[in-house]
């Protein structure tokens, strides 16, 4: 079956959807889901490149001549496991942020931060201490 470049285009659409979620959504968990979609689409891209027409899985066996490219498989296999480890780290940060701010919306966190900085500044002005 000849699909030409269709695979690459679908991967790009997926990747851009993931990127859109990351930059447009304020909810931190939504952002992480977007990042996950982005990651899977990059993996899909590598695997698409590695496919050889008429090939089979790269496990040597009598009677098969053509194998798909094993190198992208190795790279992506480890990338997935590293990906879940870093995802766990990001989720841990979200849990701690929620503990500190009581919200997981990025815009609200930024708001709370500005409010606190302003309060600190006006306090400093009242007691006449120089702001660093």
């Amino acid at each position: 079956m000849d699909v030409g470049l269709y695979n690459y285009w679908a991967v790009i659409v997926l990747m851009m959807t993931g990127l859109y979620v990351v930059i447009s959504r304020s909810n931190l968990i939504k952002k992480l889901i977007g990042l996950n979609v982005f990651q899977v689409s990059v993996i899909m891209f590598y695997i698409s490149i590695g496919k050889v027409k008429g090939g089979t899985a790269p496990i040597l066996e009598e009677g098969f001549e053509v194998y798909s490219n094993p190198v992208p498989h190795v790279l992506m296999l480890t990338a997935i496991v590293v990906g879940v480890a870093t995802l766990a780290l990001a989720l841990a940060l979200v849990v701690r942020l929620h503990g500190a701010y009581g919200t997981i919306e990025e815009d609200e966190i930024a708001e709370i931060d500005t409010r606190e900085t302003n309060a600190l500044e006006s306090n400093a002005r009242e007691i006449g201490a120089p702001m660093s």
Partner: protein
Amino acid sequence: MVLLAFLVAITWAIIQLRDLFAAVMLTGIFSLISACLFMVMDAVDVAFTEAAVGAGISTILMLRTLALTEGRSDPRYNRLELGPLAVVVAIGAVLIYGTFDMPRFGDPNAPIHTHMVPRFLEQSSEIGIPNIVTSILGSYRGYDTFGETTVVFTAAIGVFLLLSDLRRGRRVDDALRDDIILRIGAKAPIPFIMVFALYVQFHGDYGPGGGFQAGVIFAAAIVLYTLVFGLAKAEKIFRRRRLELLVAGGVLLYGAVGVVSMLFGGNFLDYNVLAHDPVHGQHYGILLIELGVGITVAAVMVSLFFLFARRQQV
């Protein structure tokens, strides 16, 4: 092709959903479908990993985070943003323009297939195992795999630092004690999952599989046990201290194989010197480092899950 269209539809649904629980479940389905796609494209090892990691562990971690934080995203922030939309459309257009110079899908003469890979395919008798993915992972690119195992280890340390709460709060008994059907039903597959994980671990040289997949599958069995019987019981079997030792032990085993091969007069991670016959040496080397990878990955995944589960809502 149909599967790829499915994936696009699921992502668009994820954008629109305000209920984060549904969004996370859709992410799990997304992973499962992409695992099928990897299978179609001959990447059996990758499909294996994606199915175990994406649909299993990461979904569970995300759900636990939802339980610790909040389940809905604020509707005020869920509108169509024109700025980001313009940015992604522009980048997407540039990338699609770039694909016109790429070799067609499945083209056997693409540059990626003509360098380096023929050597891996034709001369892998010097390694002596049929699964080329394992021989590249364990032997040709052993340094990279060592690095990646270390990254997993480091990420686990980061989560330890962020989530381990020194104040011991009251324990919530979260076991599903009343649900007898679920308990019996879940108990039955657990030993089989574990045996399967061991099979994947040690048969990885000949079939699809290896340390990364086996570690994740083994961890999935323990996660299932914890979900049904509660954290307190699971922690009695898998003590925190032992898990920490295992997390480090796997990486150390990997490194030790490298050091031992240096002591025998070879290079770091040069398994040829481990036995009298180079091919046997390669066998031992790959078996040992895969075991190291498996131990670290399993211990890291279980500790991550325990850390998230132990944390109480504040």
